[in-house]
């Protein structure tokens, strides 16, 4: 599995007053097994970019290659691509529609034209992977809690057995426990099931603890593409774009400015804790 995004542009409503350049010459590639975060402020083109990855939107310039094949080329099996690149939209629980949880999760694999037994097996595995209990399989999805609904919606995409899973703001509107569950789920899918995961998020703290590489979008352009630690070393640039570094990184760099001999390139709470304790000699 590999995705190459090559000089992609996307212009909305060309030739009218509503014209807007949402993507401007975006180039990057994704290799098998990567764990990537995509950040940028609202309206920076993140969501537009991810809807290009499974062919829901077509670039107005440039090309996207999945396993080396241009997905805009004639006769490309776009439906199969949508099975391989699973896209979970923001507030995915808003797309639930079936009478019970199990039937809703079956929707994706059914659309892939699989056999009945295979469909049910995949739905079962997906629901287990996201931690939904057996007794909840046949209740209405609208009777579940917010976090459970979201996990069911994610299962609906997982049941298609994607090679790449894109999660657009998976934690939006959830409580801290719900956020942790979703991020732990993303970790599990990446490490145990070997799925390439891309998380779109505003929260640097969430990303710092999880992803290995970060892409930063600003005004339709890809402005940074580097390992997580490297990106968070650019505090001033990020803040100029209306973004931030993880809170602990900000605290450490403020401590350093105040004269304490701490390292300021640490990004997780655990690291920061031992560093501060080290400086105070405990």
């Amino acid at each position: 599995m590999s995705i190459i995004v090559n000089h992609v542009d996307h212009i909305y409503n060309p030739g009218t007053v509503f014209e807007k350049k949402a993507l401007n010459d975006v180039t990057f590639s994704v290799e098998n097994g990567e764990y990537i975060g995509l950040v940028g402020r609202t309206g920076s083109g993140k969501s537009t970019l991810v809807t290009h990855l499974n062919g829901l939107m077509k670039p107005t310039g440039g090309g996207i290659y999945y396993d080396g094949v241009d997905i805009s080329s004639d006769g490309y099996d776009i439906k199969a691509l949508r099975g391989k690149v699973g896209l979970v939209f923001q507030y995915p629980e808003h797309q639930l529609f079936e009478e019970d949880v199990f039937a809703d999760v079956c929707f994706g694999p059914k659309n892939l034209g699989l056999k009945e037994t295979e469909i049910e097996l995949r739905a079962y595995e997906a629901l287990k992977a996201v931690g939904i209990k057996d007794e909840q399989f046949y209740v209405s999805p609208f009777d579940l809690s917010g976090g459970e609904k979201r996990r069911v919606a994610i299962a609906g995409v997982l049941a298609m057995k994607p090679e790449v899973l894109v999660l657009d703001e998976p934690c939006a509107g959830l409580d801290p426990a719900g956020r942790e569950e979703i991020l732990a789920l993303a970790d599990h899918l990446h490490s145990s099931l070997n799925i390439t995961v891309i998380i779109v998020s505003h929260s640097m703290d969430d990303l710092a603890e999880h992803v290995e590489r970060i892409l930063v979008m600003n005004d339709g352009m890809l402005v940074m593409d580097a390992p997580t630690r490297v990106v968070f070393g650019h505090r001033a640039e990020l803040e100029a774009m209306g973004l931030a570094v993880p809170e602990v990184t900000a605290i450490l760099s403020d401590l350093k400015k105040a004269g304490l001999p701490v390292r300021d390139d640490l990004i997780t709470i655990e690291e920061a804790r031992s560093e501060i304790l080290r400086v105070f000699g405990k």
Partner: protein
Amino acid sequence: MIRDITLGQYYPTDSVLHRLDPRVKLCGTLIYVISLFLFQTFTGYIVATVFLVSMIALSHVPVKFIFRGLKAILFILVFTAVLNTFLTPGRELVSFWKITITIEGVRLAAFMILRLVYLIIGSSLMTLTTTPSNLTDGLEKSLGWLKVFRVPVHEIAMMMSIALTFIPVLLEETDRIIKAQQARGADFESGNIIRRVKSLVPILVPLFISAFRRANDLAIAMESRCYHGGDGRTKMRPLAYGFRDIMAYVVLVLYLAVVIVVGIMF
């Protein structure tokens, strides 16, 4: 496909038509629509065409944008044209097998198409140049006299304005839901008619749920700002006629005069 619907959409630019009082535009649209159904001759349609083309030119709205609204009614157009062509009795034009096409039929079909197309363009020109809030303000004020007959004019205007402002919101929502279901492999384009109708369920159910959620949120937001209907409510920008509006009424009266003259003479 969803983005082709221009009904109720506003096109933000600056033009004489944009600056007119909404009451003038409402009145003008009404006169125009009535005139379309009064014309029985091609001369009449030349008058209607001249009027419409000059209004489009005045509006500064791109022509492409105006015509996009017609795509949505293409089916109705073809349907009326076919029915009129084949089912109108009269002098024979061509005849094959059991079907006869009459001169009157062709004429009627052409008129019907012109009427529908002009009707849609004329009324979308009004919504394209008037913001929804302006439009309902104008409607509320022009129909204010109906209050005497206990018609809830304010409530109707408020409902209309909410409906109009939510059209783009719901279209966007529909677009999002369609994409989300397509991401799960949904296919809305292939299969027979029953399959296609069935394929709409994954769109309609979430859409209805979201519409109810939005309605609920809006009701709470309005009540928490003490909304209690139109009585005693003041306006930030009360409608007032200016010189431009009076000139527009003069133009409308002239148009009406031409319509009547053409109706009698030709």
